[in-house]
């Protein structure tokens, strides 16, 4: 069976060339490409067969799906129904049971080396992975099976990328990111808890249209979406630069919309597109709503508490600055004492030497 391209699809539906090109332009900007790439996108959309996608879920809360189905451009419904062939999805498929699992095997066979594997959720590694089962097998088994023939693997969400909430200390199930189970398949990490809807659709469309994974940073995240810190794209940044901060959630600064740095904002450590894309067709993002960023797209953010201060507190000792200042104070006292004893010792020594001299 020849798979049709996006253009074929538009023609079959009787849609105009104009709306096709418009769609391509929307896709271009969504994928973070410059406008001179439009022509390439149109070419790809004319010729490249629509990709087959297998979407599996491990240890997670399905929040990434919740995010995904709110994608505004392209509309997630459009993406699922028209632009990709979503053959298998734990959440969105109507089928279930043995026929459903058989369909997965068939898809993997038929499109070997061509399908995109989207993974949501962490794998569990403890006790042979029994804490996360899917279709009668462990999730790690499914992951190995499905990634073996995948053209590319997309790790959606911080769980698939780094382990996520279930990997928080003490991590009873041994949850971790998926990378150790996918063999040599090229991996794109799309972290976030959840990722921004348009980022999720943008990445998959890039792979679909160009047949290659987007340029990645040294952590394996697509540069066009994770190349900037939230802090560097945040609209509250001028307040940061000017030293204007909210210090509590109800002070003057908070009401005036000043920077949330002193309330533990993780924007300076977090790479994501919240600052420029924002959420839900640009409606808002956490900082805009007055909540400091918790760095949900960072590896290990779940253990970097407390989220509302810049640095960890060590009980009554306070943070490292308090401890350090106390240590410096203690050191000053110690040094003074040491100096006094040193002088005393020196005097003793000299007195002794003198006495010895006189004795000679």
């Amino acid at each position, binding site marked *: 069976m020849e798979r049709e391209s996006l253009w074929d699809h538009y023609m079959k539906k009787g849609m105009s060339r104009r709306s096709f090109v418009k769609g391509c332009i929307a896709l271009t900007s969504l994928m973070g490409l410059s406008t001179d790439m439009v022509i390439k996108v149109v070419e790809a959309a004319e010729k490249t067969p629509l990709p087959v996608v297998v979407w599996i879920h491990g240890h997670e809360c399905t929040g990434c799906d919740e995010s995904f189905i709110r994608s505004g451009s392209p509309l997630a419904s459009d993406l699922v129904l028209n632009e990709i062939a979503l053959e298998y999805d734990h959440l969105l498929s109507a089928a279930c049971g043995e026929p459903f699992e058989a369909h997965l095997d068939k898809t993997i066979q038929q499109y070997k080396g061509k399908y995109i594997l989207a993974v949501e959720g962490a794998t569990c590694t403890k006790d042979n992975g029994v804490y996360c089962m899917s279709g009668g097998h462990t999730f790690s088994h499914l992951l190995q099976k499905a990634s073996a023939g995948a053209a590319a693997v997309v790790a959606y969400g911080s769980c698939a990328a780094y382990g996520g909430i279930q990997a928080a200390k003490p991590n009873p199930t041994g949850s971790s990111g998926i990378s150790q189970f996918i063999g040599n398949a090229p991996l794109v990490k799309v972290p976030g808890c959840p990722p921004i809807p348009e980022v999720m659709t943008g990445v998959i469309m890039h792979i679909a249209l160009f047949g290659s994974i987007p340029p990645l940073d040294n952590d394996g995240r697509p540069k066009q979406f994770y190349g900037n810190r939230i802090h560097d794209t945040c609209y509250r940044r001028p307040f940061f630069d000017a030293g204007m901060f909210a210090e509590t959630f109800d002070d003057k600064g908070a009401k005036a919309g000043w920077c949330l740095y*002193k309330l533990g904002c993780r924007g300076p450590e977090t790479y994501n597109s919240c600052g420029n894309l924002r959420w839900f067709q640009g409606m808002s993002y956490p900082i805009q709503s007055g909540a400091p960023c918790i760095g949900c797209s960072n590896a290990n953010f779940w253990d970097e508490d407390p989220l509302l201060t810049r*640095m960890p507190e060590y009980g009554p000792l306070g943070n490292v*600055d308090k401890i350090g200042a106390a240590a410096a104070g203690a050191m000053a006292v110690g040094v003074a004492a040491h100096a006094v004893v040193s002088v005393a010792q020196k005097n003793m020594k000299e007195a002794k030497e003198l006495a010895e001299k006189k004795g000679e």
Partner: protein
Amino acid sequence: MADEIMKEEPRKTYYVFSPFLRIFHWIMAISITVLFITGILITTPWVTYSSEPTTSWMALDWIRNIHFLFAYIFTASFILRIYGFIINRGDRLFPHFWKGYFYRNTIDVAMHYSFLKFEHKPFLRNPLARGAYATMYVLIAIEILTGFGIYYMTDTSSLGGMLFGWFVPLIGSEYWAHLIHHYVAWGIILSALGHIYMVIRAEFMEGEGEVSSMFAGTKMLRHKPFDAGHLDGTLD
């Protein structure tokens, strides 16, 4: 009694530190001070209530820029250190932890510092100090790697990104890189305080020329220091 002690003593001059090391040292002293103060201010900035973002001039933006500027100056000054290291043996006073005498002498010095002995053997640089300075360089290396690692993460394909970009993913998260940077900064500043005390003590109580040698490059000593052979290569 006083003039009986202050008798004429023959002293010998040892040329230890090259000018490159000395200049580096003072750049380092200034840089560490500035970097520490600005770093603390970046983590816990003061709050300005009376300005407009567009008109304020001496705020966090500037403090950060000063921090970055001195980070560059300090790192660049290592060129001097390395050059001195190559051309002058006195710039190469390693802790010889692969030698038995290193440990024996360390114990000797430690006993003197804890007042169990009246004095320790004379050294150009005693083994305890050598160990401490080596540790200091390790701490500084951590600061450079975490600092530039964080700094260049927005441009991973630049030269700086390629040089330092691998380090933050190695730590696991950028937040941890920030914390390590901050904690190690405290380690450096506390060591620096200890260092200042110890050199002043060595200069004025033991006559070891620790402070003056960092200006003049030479030490004038009464006794032949145990490690004098490190200057001409007769002790390895």
